[in-house]
Every structure is written in structure tokens, then in C-alpha cells.
């Protein structure tokens, strides 16, 4: 691509005690593109994402953001760079409303007092910018929202902060057909707005529907990072299940786990 990656990882190792989960992983994310991160259960997708988000410290390797080497020591560092993660369990508070959730931990105040009007206005603008028209009132409690609406709120929360990289952990896993389409449309729109989007998914249809690139993890190693248009459905499945597919993938084929 003409543009360099906004986020680039090189040689990432990560162990939990005696178990090495990530081996020498390289991963790049480009602005304006959806990068699908695929891999079987236990391949290390979630761990990789948590390393990016600063939840897990990395044991070895380099973290580049917009071409510069950075240290990410916690979720706040990642957020300061403009990296936002939407977790599978969404991390929303059921007992708070949409605006309160979107600003959770980053509330706007005027003096000591919360500036509710400003927060509501900003939240409304963000949702309008994403062409979200599915919520009745911004003051609805999250507990009253459907799965798709919750996902929308979680994604809107992530883009509210002029973030540059948004990572979505299986956003469609628990959704029905119509809501999945809705969320995928939203994912595409994020990328079209110039954000770098990482989409973790098990669903090949979703991956091929919205992604520009596919990165396949196999037993903690990056099997391949390819353009979606260059590969077929079955090649990706092969990469996920055996780590290689023809010319693509790991050279020795077995990514000696743990």
C-alpha cells in the first residue's frame, strides 16, 4: 500500500509462566483498512490483542506506532496513542445509560460537576457520524438495549476519542443475521472514515465480507498476513488449521506450541 502501517509489531514474544503463547509475532495494521485477525481457539488472538492494548506486558519485541517505537505499559498508554479495543464481553455497565457508558472513565466536567449536556451532545454527534439510527434515546440504560445496539454503543465508545486503531474482538459472535449485517456495515464505515480496524472473527463470511487484509495466527505464530483479494476461502481455512497453505504460511509447518 501507499501508506505505511499505523501500528506495527515485530518479534513479539509472550509467555504466561512456562507456557509461551506468542512466538516472534509480526503484525501490521493500516489506516483505512480492515485487517481480519483469524486463528483457531488458543492460537493467541486474544493475547495478541491484549498485548496491543497494554493489558499484558510483552516479553520481547518492538511496538511501533505511526512509525515510531513506543512503550505501552498499560491500557492508558494504548488509549493515549489512540488504540481502542472493543472486547467480546463489551465492557459496558448495564446500570448506566448510553452516554454514561460512552464516556466511562473519561467523563467531561466543568469544574467539579459532570457536564452532562456536553457529553450527550458529543455522543449524539459520534453516533450520527456513524449513521447509527437504531437507538431511541441516548439516556436509555444499556440493560434495555439489544445485542446489536450494545455492540454499536461499544464501537461508538471506541471511536469517540479520535482513535486511530480500533480492535474489535468477535463483534458478531452473539448476533443474529440482521444485526450482524448492521455491525459489519458499521465496521466498514469505520475503515472508510480512515481508521485502522482490526477485526477478530471466526466467521469466514464476515472476514471476506469486510476485510482488506487477513492475518492468520497458528499456535502462537503469525502464519501469514495477506491481502484478502489474493486468497480464497479454503486457503484461509488451511492457514488457520495447519499454519500453511501451498506457498503461504509457516515454513516448517509446525509451530511448536508451548
Amino acid at each position, binding site marked *: 500500500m501507499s501508506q505505511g502501517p499505523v501500528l506495527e509489531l515485530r518479534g513479539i514474544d509472550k509467555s504466561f509462566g512456562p507456557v509461551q503463547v506468542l512466538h516472534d509475532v509480526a503484525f501490521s495494521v493500516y489506516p483505512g483498512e480492515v485487517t481480519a485477525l483469524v486463528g483457531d481457539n488458543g492460537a493467541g488472538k486474544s493475547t495478541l490483542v491484549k498485548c496491543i492494548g497494554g493489558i499484558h506486558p510483552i516479553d520481547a519485541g518492538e511496538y511501533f506506532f505511526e512509525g515510531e517505537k513506543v512503550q505501552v505499559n498499560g491500557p492508558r498508554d494504548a*488509549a493515549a496513542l489512540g488504540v481502542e479495543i472493543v472486547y467480546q464481553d463489551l465492557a459496558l455497565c448495564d*446500570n448506566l445509560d448510553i452516554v454514561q457508558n460512552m464516556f466511562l*472513565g473519561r467523563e467531561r466536567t466543568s469544574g467539579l460537576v*459532570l457536564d452532562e*449536556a456536553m457529553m*450527550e*451532545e458529543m455522543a449524539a454527534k459520534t453516533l450520527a457520524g456513524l*449513521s447509527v439510527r437504531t437507538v431511541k*434515546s441516548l439516556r436509555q440504560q444499556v*440493560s434495555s438495549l439489544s445485542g446489536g445496539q450494545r455492540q454499536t454503543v461499544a464501537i461508538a465508545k471506541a471511536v469517540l476519542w479520535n482513535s486511530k486503531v480500533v480492535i474489535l474482538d468477535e463483534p458478531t459472535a452473539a448476533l443474529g443475521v440482521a444485526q450482524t449485517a448492521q455491525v459489519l456495515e458499521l465496521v466498514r464505515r469505520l475503515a472508510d472514515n480512515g481508521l485502522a480496524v482490526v477485526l477478530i472473527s471466526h466467521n469466514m463470511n464476515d472476514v471476506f465480507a469486510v476485510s482488506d487484509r487477513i492475518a492468520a495466527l497458528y499456535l502462537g505464530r503469525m502464519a501469514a498476513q495477506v491481502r484478502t483479494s489474493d486468497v480464497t476461502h479454503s486457503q484461509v481455512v488451511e492457514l488457520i488449521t495447519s499454519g500453511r497453505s501451498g506457498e503461504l504460511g509457516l515454513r516448517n509447518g509446525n509451530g511448536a506450541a508451548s
Partner: protein
Amino acid sequence: MTTETLPERSTSESAIGVHVKGYVERVRGGELGALPAVFGLVVLCVVFSVLRPAFLSPVNFANLFTQGAAVTVIAMGLIFVLLLGEIDLSAGFASGVCAAVLAVLLTNEGWPWYAAVGASMLTGAIIGTVLGTLVAKLGIPSFVVTLAAFLAFQGVLLLLVKGGTNISIRDETILAIANNNVPPVVSWVAVIAGVAAYAAIQFVKARRRSARGLVADPLILIIFRVAALAVIAGVAVYVLNLERSRNELIVSLKGVPIVVPVIVVLLLVWTFVLHRTRYGRHVYAVGGNAEASRRAGINVDGIRISAFVICSFMASIGGIIAASRANSVDPNTGGSDVLLFAVGAAVIGGTSLFGGKGRALDAVLGGAVVAVIQNGMGLMGYSAGVKYVVTGSVLLLAAGVDALSRKRAAATGRR
């Protein structure tokens, strides 16, 4: 996007109708709010005043406030702990220990009242810090930590009052808290100023919101709220300002008990903290989803510890009020039923034992219900045994309503 509802930005619909409809929908969906407490309060008051007309007398009305004050204040602090889904079983004896500290310093050591009150409140804050740290940092369940503290504080209280003697309090200022009244003129000025301030705040807020193009409360609703507050406060102050002395030639007894403004100020402060500050928002967030709060960068342990500090601090104020009312501190101050009444008050008021739901006002509503039961059953001549059974049943009923409304909320997709 698909065809779900479009945002309602128009205010063309009958504004009041929308609010009423929204409220009914919420109640049907299991968000009962203050409804059970208000309903219970009305029913209890009607029943008691029919059975015992003395219940409605101004003397008894004033008694209700002084009887319920300590429990209400302790409950207000407990709400912070309950909001996090934790419990503080030691709040009762913590209030007793703080009261004993006050009494020992005042009577035995001869400290001035402000220094003794300060030391008592500081004791409360320290107790809360220790409890909160054990819960948040060591991860011991709050049930166990505070159960241990419950027992230990009972012992500390015994040690402070030297094995069961009764320390009487003679300081005029401290005694005034639960025994003296506000001059009638001052209370009327305060009511008028309070209602005016409330109206101004509501009105300015609505104006600001509509100026930004956000949905604001309709004027008629604001007028209704202000009127309701004015009527309730006005009637209460009017009744309390009636002469309640048996023989007013000997001593005149009228005015709002001083504990009432104390409770009102505490209510305003904690309501402001919970609903208007970042800290309060974080308390609700941690109670709703601690993991989400942690990921949002909220210092979850800090919030936990602070909730216990507030709880024990409020317990110390409750202890001071109890000491003032009893004119003394003994080994049972803050003991026996105080804690259960306080937890009961919070839950009856509508605070959830599951965390994430509750308001400072709940303590006042629930505290009123508990005080009315105690007072009314006392007038009826029932023994302490019957009172305990009834109060226990009401607590169970309130917790049942809480659990059922959660189920209801889950069934209607509100959870």
C-alpha cells in the same frame, strides 16, 4: 441500516404524556425505584393513624425524625457499600465505637465538642480505610471482613466504656443535635430558600439543555416537581412548628428538630456526589461492572476503599446522633438492631443488594419506613419481640421485591 426506530428528537408529542408513559413502562419493566417505599410509608401511616390517632400528633411526628435519624444516616453511608455489591455488617458497632470515642473525650478527657466530634469522625474514616483496604487489596469478602469487625468493634466498645459502664454526655452542643429544635422563622426561611434554589436549578438545567438542542424536561413537569417539594417541605415544617408541649406555660416545645437539617444537608451532599461528580459515576460503574470499570481506567480498588470510608464515616455521624439522643453511650450503642435497621432502610428505600442501583434518598425513605414501624408498633403497645419480627419481615419483603424486580427486568430485557 435496518428498520428500527428513528431517534425521537421532536417535542411535538404531548410532553407530559411521554414522561408518564415512560415512567409506567419503567415500573412495568421492573424498575420500581422509590415506589414500594413510598407506597409502604403511606399504607403504614394510614393504618397506624386509624388504629392510634396519637400517631398523627405533632409530638409523635417530631419523635419519628429523632428516632429514625441515626439509622437513616448510617444507611446513607451503607448505600455506597451496597452500590458496589458489598456489605458492611460492622457499621452499627462502628457507630458505637465512634460514639464511645466522642463520649470518652468529652466527658472523661474534657475535650471541647468540636475536637471530640472531629476525633470521632476521624475514627470512623480510619475504620473505613482499614476495612476497605482488607476488602479491596487483600480480596477478603466484605461479608467476612465486616463480620469479624462487627465482633471486634463490639469488644472495642466494651473496652472503651470500661466493661459496661454508662458514660453520660453533658455537652450542650452535642445534646442539642437530637434534643433541640430550629427556631420556626429560620426553618421557614430555609424551606423557601431551598425550594427556590431547587426551582432555579431545574429551570436553568432545562434551559441549557434545550439551548443545546437536547431533550429537556417540559416546563409543566418542572413546575409539578417544585410544587411537590414545596408542599411536602411546607407541610412538614408547618406541623413541626406547632406547639407540642403538654403545658406551654412551663416550657415551649416547637420547631424542626436539629437532626432534620443535618439529614437534609447530608442527603444533598451525597446526592450531589453520586449524581453530579465523576467520583459518583465511577461508584455506579464499579457496582455495575467492575471489569468494565477497570478497563475504562477507573481505580476500582480506590473506589472500593473510599466507599467503606464513606460508610464508616457516616456511621460515626450516626453514632454521634445516637449518643446525643440517648444522652449517653453504653456497650449497646450502635448494637443489637441498629445495623439491620440501617441495611433494611437502604433496601426498603430501593437500593439493590446486588450493587449498581441506589440513591442517597433511599436511606431517607427506607429510614422513614423503619422509624414508622418502630414508632407505630410502640404506640400500639407491642413488645420488642413483635417489633423485631415485623421489621425483619419487612426487610425480607424489601429484599424480595428487589430480587423479583431484577427477575422482572431480566424478563423484559432490561438487563
